[in-house]
């Protein structure tokens, strides 16, 4: 119980670090120095001490939205195993986890429409469009995981997969499907460019254009946590080898180190994907998600029908 709270706290605190590392890796791969890895923390600190400017068109959504978004992100961090799992936790139903993560999306899209700004509406509409297509993939991935482990509980899934030695080809295909979904859901590169405010690339950034001060800090922090959670879920469902299943110091240290290595590897993969692929046109994003859909279907077929 206590170790679960501690590991979730670590995840929340380390989340901006991971996005800092991601930015740094991208910078190095592109051949320039880049900001220090702790930059996201400085940004958040700066935003928290700034004054808050809100649009005069905005409503209570802008007031409560960022708070709820951050709370949902933190709550979902508490439902995710990071490097330790006992497998008998009461919490951790995958469905609830995924639906709680969708709170973030719901309020983000409402915030986009809230300040009566064209760009906000545009981002909101696009985000929902992508979300609608991504939903079947989520269903199929959850189905795959359930077929594989006969459980919806992420702690149990992590434990079962941590002690598994053989990996089937279905597992790999499903992991690819999950990775594409992760990229789409976190507004990463082929779907959305998180670095710019260009009208063409506006999906996630467009919705929060008129947010400032602590609200912006909350939303930035929430999206950093969300990325970290998605990667952690990915690691714990598909590659949980070396995860601590008992409370011994050696196992825990090994688990933390392995977790960090896996995290860095996937951040590197995302960075490589981001610098090597151009952003897709909005109407080609469904093609990407459809590819993810067919990966998921293929995984289920290989898992279940063979």
């Amino acid at each position, binding site marked *: 119980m206590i170790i679960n709270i501690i590991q979730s706290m670590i995840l929340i605190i380390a989340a901006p670090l991971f996005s800092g590392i991601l930015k740094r890796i991208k910078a190095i791969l592109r051949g320039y120095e880049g900001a220090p890895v702790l930059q996201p923390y400085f940004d958040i600190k700066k935003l928290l001490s700034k004054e808050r400017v809100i649009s005069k068109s905005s409503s209570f959504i802008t007031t409560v939205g960022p708070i709820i978004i951050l709370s949902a992100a933190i709550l979902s961090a508490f439902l995710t195993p990071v490097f330790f799992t006992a497998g008998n936790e009461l919490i951790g139903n995958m469905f609830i986890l995924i639906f709680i993560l969708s709170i973030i999306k719901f309020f983000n899209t409402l915030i986009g429409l809230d300040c009566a700004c064209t760009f906000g509406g545009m981002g909101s509409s696009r985000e929902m469009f992508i979300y609608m297509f991504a939903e079947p993939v989520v269903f199929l991935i959850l189905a795959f995981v359930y077929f594989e482990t006969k459980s919806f509980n992420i702690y149990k899934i992590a434990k079962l997969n941590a002690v598994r030695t053989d990996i089937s*080809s279905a597992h790999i295909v499903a992991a690819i499907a999950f990775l594409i979904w992760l990229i789409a859901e976190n507004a990463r590169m082929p779907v959305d460019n998180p670095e710019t405010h260009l009208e063409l690339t506006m999906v996630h950034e467009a919705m929060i254009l008129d947010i400032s001060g602590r609200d912006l800090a909350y939303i930035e922090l929430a999206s950093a946590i969300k990325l970290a959670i998605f990667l952690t879920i990915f690691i714990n469902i598909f590659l949980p080898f070396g995860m601590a299943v008992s409370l011994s110091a050696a196992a825990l240290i090994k688990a933390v180190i392995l977790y960090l290595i896996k995290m860095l590897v996937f951040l590197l993969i995302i960075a490589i994907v981001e610098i090597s692929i151009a952003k897709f046109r909005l109407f080609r994003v469904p093609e990407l998600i459809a590819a993810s859909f*067919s990966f998921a279907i293929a995984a289920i077929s*290989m898992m279940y029908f063979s």
Partner: protein
Amino acid sequence: MLEILSAVILISAIIMSSLRRVNLLIRGFSVQSLAISLVCFTLGFKTGEVHYYIIGALTLLVKTLIIPIVASKSVRELKINREMKLIIDGYWSSILTALSIATTYVFLDNFNNDFVKAGFVLMVLGGIILIGRKKAISQMIGFLVMENGLVLFEISMIKMTLIIEILIILEVLMLSVIMGVMVFYINKAFDTVNTDYLSNIKE
């Protein structure tokens, strides 16, 4: 090892079915053939039959190296990198791919070998590429993907004789050469490699 390879084969096939760029299509095909030849080598190593090694070596030579090189060269010379209007666009072709994979696995569920199903899936997906594209080169790639499926079939259950297999591979090589020549001439005659224009020959 075999699991990872069969995953790579399927992943490459699925990605190819929604790709638009001819270059990437060729590269995907090359990766797929490499995986298949590795499968052959692994099986050969496991069973110790020379038969597998020969097929693997031929696949490696012809499909991973010669055909992709020839094809990408012609792509570069003819400057046809992108399929403009697909007959089945990316989204629906992925959905179609997904459904056909699922049905294939359901209908072949009494075969206990993964490669049979993977082979069949490759044949179907090759068919989808063949039907959905307009450029002659991508149609050729579709055909070659179908042939890859045949190889998988062959190494997993149906014991074809080695000679037939070698003949098939040589034939594929011939096909790609002929296709290359043909594409060149189509391009010369119509200023495009879009097969739609072939209907202009009709009186």
